[in-house]
């Protein structure tokens, strides 16, 4: 019976510090099947697979490959067991050719036999329908070519079990179709494949079975033929957890930001944010939900003047309500926006990269927002000093002194310093991205409290979050993004978790409502 399984992982547990990334997870992969590993961001999918491919070592639990219990301590061990993983971030050397990348680190003669390698590569390609030129340099390849090369690399090394970590995230629909075709070819050839994904339509299209993880725990698995999108969403997002976050009725909310036809393209010309129409009201908290990388970052940065938008896009700022004067924010930079008297506060996702300077002290970081204040040629140190002291006192920041570099602070204290500084500037719009990520419960509640205070003070608060329970219990309205488009806007008081989860993963919902 056990021989049917290519891989079985039993009670696998992995913790990072005090974060439990995987808790007694169970996974079985049958020979010659495609298994989807489904879950939200941070549900532990990649961690679990990294343990199978030798990147991480499990704290507890057993792994069986081909019915035999094994220890996988390095990628080397994984290859020896016929397990190959294609990571989201490709592991390829740009200046080397496809063939050179494939043989990298393999044992063999003093000189690489390029002809033999090229022949074997072509054999693999013709067998499964890949298209790889062995002599092409990686820097000349498109993303999809690189991915193909990664898959061929694992096959060249004799992988019987393939793990693909969100392979379609970087592909166009046509490329995805092509990938699925070769995946089916590989399966029919007897390979066993695990595909990590959070896209329901892909789960249904490609896989034979699906295993669902949530918050690092095994929720269940089922045959795809018996599954449907609704059922899978329910498994993915789970039951609602009551958090007792305070939420007051907004007091006379007024329209403060009018986002119209906002479209943002990245450097490669890929559309990251597609025709967004959204209003943000003063005195309310607007939640933004979505799988990560669906345009949240671009949305906030476009408002903050850090991201240029396609012409025709507009973000109007109305300090005194819908009928008052308006300032156009698109096409400006943070400095010109500030000079117009628009007080935007931004708590970015990357706290120690964009938010604060890690090696500077608390005082120095306060100064970053005030260095142009005053007329003296010397920088004013007194006010930043006072502000730092005030933040430490009011938000109970644990730090040896205000002259400590912020990188020495714990994640929660770093966030308090950042939020404290942003709020101190008396913003009219407060944007936060993943404000409670990695924070303990108490600090999280402190952050919720601060956001609520701002809401009460008439600030337009935008809260980009990943925990649906928090979004549903903190926010007055929730805008759901899916693949760079607005799936819809829901009332935070009546929306259900399933509803949000479904809209995050499917675009068909097009509810009117700005």
């Amino acid at each position, binding site marked *: 019976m056990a021989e049917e399984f290519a891989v079985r992982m039993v009670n696998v547990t992995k913790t990072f510090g005090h974060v439990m990334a995987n808790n007694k997870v169970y996974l079985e992969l049958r020979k010659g099947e495609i298994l989807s590993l489904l879950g939200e961001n941070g549900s532990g999918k990649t961690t679990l697979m990294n343990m199978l491919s030798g990147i991480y070592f499990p704290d507890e639990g057993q792994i069986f490959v081909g019915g035999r219990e094994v220890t996988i301590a390095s990628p*080397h061990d994984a290859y020896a067991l016929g397990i190959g993983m294609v990571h989201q971030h490709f592991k390829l050397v*740009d200046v080397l050719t496809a063939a050179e990348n494939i043989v*990298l*680190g393999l044992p063999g003669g*003093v000189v690489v036999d390029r002809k033999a390698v090229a022949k074997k590569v072509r054999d693999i390609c013709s067998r499964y329908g890949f298209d790889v030129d062995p002599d092409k340099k990686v820097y000349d390849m498109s993303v999809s070519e690189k991915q193909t090369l990664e898959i061929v690399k694992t096959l060249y090394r004799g992988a019987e079990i393939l793990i693909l970590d969100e392979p379609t995230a970087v592909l166009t629909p046509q490329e995805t179709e092509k990938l699925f075709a070769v995946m089916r070819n590989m399966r029919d050839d007897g390979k066993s494949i695990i595909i990590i994904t959070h896209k329901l339509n892909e789960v249904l299209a490609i896989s034979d079975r699906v295993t669902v993880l949530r918050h690092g725990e095994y929720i269940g698995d089922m045959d795809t033929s018996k599954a449907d999108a609704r059922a899978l969403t329910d498994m993915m997002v789970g039951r609602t957890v009551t958090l007792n976050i305070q939420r007051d009725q907004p007091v006379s909310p007024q329209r403060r930001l009018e986002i119209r036809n906002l479209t943002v393209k990245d450097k490669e010309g890929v559309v990251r944010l597609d025709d967004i129409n959204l209003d943000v009201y003063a005195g309310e908290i607007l939640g933004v939900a979505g799988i990560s990388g669906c345009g949240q970052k671009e949305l906030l940065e476009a408002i903050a003047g850090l991201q240029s938008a396609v012409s025709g896009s507009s973000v109007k700022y109305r300090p005194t309500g819908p009928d008052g004067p308006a300032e156009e924010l698109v096409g400006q930079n943070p400095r010109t926006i500030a000079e117009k008297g628009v007080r935007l506060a931004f708590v970015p996702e990357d706290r120690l990269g964009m938010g604060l300077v890690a090696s500077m002290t608390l005082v120095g970081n306060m100064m970053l927002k005030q260095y142009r204040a005053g007329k003296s040629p010397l920088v004013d140190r007194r006010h930043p000093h006072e502000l730092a002291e005030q933040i430490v006192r009011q938000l109970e920041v644990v730090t040896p002194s205000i002259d400590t570099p912020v990188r020495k602070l714990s994640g929660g204290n770093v966030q308090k310093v950042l939020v404290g500084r942003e709020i101190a500037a008396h913003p009219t719009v407060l944007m936060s991205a993943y404000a409670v990520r990695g924070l303990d419960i108490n600090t999280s509640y402190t952050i919720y409290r601060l956001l609520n205070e701002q809401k009460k003070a008439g600030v337009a608060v935008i809260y980009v979050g990943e925990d649906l329970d928090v979004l549903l219990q903190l926010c007055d309205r929730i805008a759901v993004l899916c693949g760079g488009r607005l799936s819809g806007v829901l009332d935070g008081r009546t929306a259900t978790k399933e509803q949000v989860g479904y809209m995050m993963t499917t675009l068909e919902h097009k509810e009117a409502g700005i």
Partner: protein
Amino acid sequence: MTQLISLLTSAIVFGTVILYGAVGEIITEKSGNLNLGVPGIMYLGGIAGLAAAFFYEMHAAEPVGAIGLVLSFLAAVAASMLGGLIYAFLTITLRANQNVTGLTLTIFGAGLANLFGGSLNNLAGGVGQISVAVTSRAYRAYIPALGGLGNFGKLFFSFGFMAYLAIAIAVAASWFLGRSRVGLNLRAVGEDPATADAAGINVTRYKYLATCVGAAISGLGGLYYTMDYIKGTWSIDGTAEALGWLAVALVIFATWRPLRAIWSAYLFGVLYWAYNYITGLSRGSVELFKMLPYLVTILVLVAVSMRRSKESQPPKSLGLSYFREER
């Protein structure tokens, strides 16, 4: 014509010193280690070779050139590998900043070498400079029949064996990096250590070996400098350090290619010595001429950056320490 031949031969001697330095540094940099300690390592190689030859000649009743040669060669290799090992330990194991470590190594090597160079001068009699004439002669020996073939012989066969060894090492390094399996792995380490690690390559071992072997080759430049360029003496005029920096510049000029480094080294030599063959130069203009090699390096750097050719770029992870990812 005589003038031209004379310029070219001095350019070749000059070029050989920096060719060693540069080829060693190319090997090191291909592992992602930017070792700015090349001048210091060349100093170490030079003084170790000189000291070995000196003590041998002092104690042997009838010094034999060949023995002095072997002893000084081994001493130079050992001392410069030790220099490379210090650098490797600091930057790879302790993850110290590569630039700081390299510069420190240069200061250390120069200081140590000049300390011992001065002491050797004292041992040799206190006044004047030491000389290891017998060993130096062995280094500079060439086949008279070939060297005597007029200008042709002068240009191609009038050098000591180390001038040819330098070319051989450069050719071998080129083959090693471009063709061999270990060379391929080494390049991957310097480009993208995380990828190399995932492919099962022992990144730490590659970095250590490349740095030590590279240092040994660079150190030979110092040995050649003391034994051939200044004919078995010691000078504290700082030329050795200047040549060390030129070797670093040569790495960039040659865009990390050992074969290109060969002719570039000689070109640097021609540019460096050109002032000697232009009549009527003031002292000031002489110094300007000596600047030429650095100037062309800057021009190459600008040209390479503007062309953005992927092939002419430094190894991608050059100067960065490698941490295996942990969350």
